[in-house]
């Protein structure tokens, strides 16, 4: 029996029981659309994370203090010790031993309540040096960045990101205004151009001041610590050389001969990207697997309905066998019927899942929440369709074989 004939019979059978066929397909439809949608969300999250990490600045390398070891060598957590100094930053900027490092900047973080007029907002305040915009790839939209003169004079001036502007200055030009950070007055001298990206770790939620001013007015008892050094390599190709150079200089300066005992740790943007991607891939897999469970449930639904169909059509199977259908003919007929059910459900599920993924960013509540824009990938569509047809095949084999092995005499006698 040819496939065309089997398809014709399959569609005839499915149309004869429209409601039942539709409900059975619904199981696969929901499973496939869940797989498509959740994998798209996972991909979207991955794209979003990548964009955010890329917005950290090109070719950047982060240097953190190593985890402090307490009594008995118990680690006290990431960046808890204070081993980096301003002298380290100056040494890295000398460029004698590190030709591949373009610039290095110190970072001193200080959190604080920021107020302007009757508005208040919470944003981290970053103390740094004049090379900050170059290293971290920020553009000045308005006003200017602070100068070396401002750093030396410990001037209380800040440059703020777009998120901070939006939250504090409703319609007022921020440049020239005075804001208070932890009740200390700072004058806004510039605004960064927005870098985009929303939600966790937005690059626009920043307040940047001369590191000397942060030490003098905001750090309190933490003194003149450098919590992080950010360096930028001359190009993407020299990042690993630059990392080696920085390690050599810092080990030398800290008088450590064994690199495994280093009191600092280095991470490049690429390292972070690699880590983030592996996490995002795991997330996508978990989401896909959860959705996959519903596909299996849909497959069991198909098997159930096919068993009912075989029982109902026992007599028809008997007739077909009496007029010459072989085992293979009956098997093919019912397998194709199961695969048409699951394949159709799969195709509709792909359409629904993709439609939901494309429409989600247009729903205001979702758009404003910073939820990642789902990205429907072609492999996930092909895989979902393949898997749904495969499910028809897998769950169809048992009922189809049961039909094919019926004895013609008993099947004909069946009422």
């Amino acid at each position, binding site marked *: *029996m040819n496939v065309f004939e089997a398809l014709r019979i399959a569609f005839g059978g499915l149309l004869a029981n429209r409601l039942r066929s539709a409900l059975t397909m619904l199981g696969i439809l929901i499973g496939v659309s869940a797989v498509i949608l959740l994998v798209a969300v996972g991909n979207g999250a991955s794209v979003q994370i990548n964009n955010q990490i890329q917005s950290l600045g090109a070719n950047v390398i982060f240097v953190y203090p190593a985890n402090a070891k307490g009594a008995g060598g118990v680690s006290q957590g990431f960046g808890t010790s204070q081993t980096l100094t301003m002298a380290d930053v100056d040494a890295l900027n000398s460029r004698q031993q590190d030709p591949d490092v373009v610039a290095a900047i110190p970072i001193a973080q200080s959190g604080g309540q920021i107020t302007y007029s009757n508005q208040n907002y919470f944003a981290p305040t970053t103390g740094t040096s004049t090379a900050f915009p170059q290293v971290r790839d920020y553009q000045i939209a308005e006003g200017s960045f602070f100068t070396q003169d401002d750093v030396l004079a410990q001037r209380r001036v800040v440059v703020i990101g777009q998120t901070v502007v939006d939250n504090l200055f409703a319609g007022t030009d921020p440049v020239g205004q005075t804001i208070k950070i932890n009740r200390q007055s700072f004058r806004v001298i510039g605004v960064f151009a927005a870098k985009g990206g929303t939600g966790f770790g937005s690059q626009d939620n920043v307040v940047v001041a001369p590191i000397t001013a942060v030490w003098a007015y905001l750090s309190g008892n933490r003194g003149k610590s450098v919590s992080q050094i950010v360096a930028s390599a001359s190009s993407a190709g020299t990042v690993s050389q630059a990392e080696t150079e920085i390690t050599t200089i810092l080990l030398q300066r800290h008088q450590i001969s064994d690199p495994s005992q280093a009191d600092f740790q280095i991470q490049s943007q690429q390292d972070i990207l690699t880590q983030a991607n592996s996490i995002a891939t795991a997330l996508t897999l978990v989401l896909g697997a959860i959705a996959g469970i519903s596909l299996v449930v849909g497959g069991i639904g198909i098997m159930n309905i096919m068993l009912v169909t075989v029982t109902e059509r026992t007599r028809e199977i008997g007739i077909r066998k009496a*007029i*010459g259908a072989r085992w293979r003919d009956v098997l093919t007929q019912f397998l194709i019927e199961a695969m048409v059910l699951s394949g159709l459900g799969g195709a509709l599920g792909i359409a629904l899942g993709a439609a939901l993924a494309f429409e989600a960013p247009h729903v205001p509540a979702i758009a404003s929440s910073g939820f990642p824009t789902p990205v429907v990938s072609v492999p996930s569509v092909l895989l979902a369709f393949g898997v749904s047809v495969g499910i028809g095949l897998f769950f169809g084999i048992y009922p189809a074989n049961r039909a094919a092995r019926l004895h013609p005499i008993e099947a*004909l006698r069946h009422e």
Partner: protein
Amino acid sequence: MIELQAVTKTYWMGKVEVQALRGIDLVVDEGEFVAIMGASGSGKSTLMNIIGCLDVPTSGRYLLDHTDVAKLDDDRLAAIRNRKIGFVFQSFNLIPRTTALHNVEMPLIYAGVADRRRRSIAALTAVGMADRAGHQPTELSGGQQQRAAIARALVTNPAILLADEPTGNLDTASSTEIMKLLGQLNREQGRTIVLITHEPDIAAFAGRVVELRDGLVVGDRRRAA
């Protein structure tokens, strides 16, 4: 055409052994119209299943068109049924939700024959059903359904037409019509027909009547032509 030699068939119904056929010798020649008669329990259904290659004998030989079919496996039996036997059932057994034409095409589909449409229409024309080709079984009367079933049985040009109580579900007028059609196919096209029935009126249409009782042939009468 058909040659049964000492055919027996034994069933096990639970732990009870049932000897449905106890040694049947029967020869049906080409072009014969034979009625096999017997009361229920006489073994005539079992005999029909064996002649129709739906079942194999427990012992003995069965030659159909010079082929020994007693020892064939399921798929080979299916092929034999497809090519050499045309079934006509008491309850018509057309496939539901399928037009008469498509029902008639079905054996040709399983045989993998091309030219199905033309041969099927020819078969429907031969039984006077050409104008009903596009109707589904539910849109046909009992007599019409049985005609379509006869067309389906004839379409592969089989060695024998095996009719199992073909008039059992029909009124007297339709019964007579169907029996006349079978008689005509026998006379005009030389079809070999084996008819299973328990009604003497129906058996009277055949040229030869074989009587079964308790799994044995107890009578074999030929009517003078």
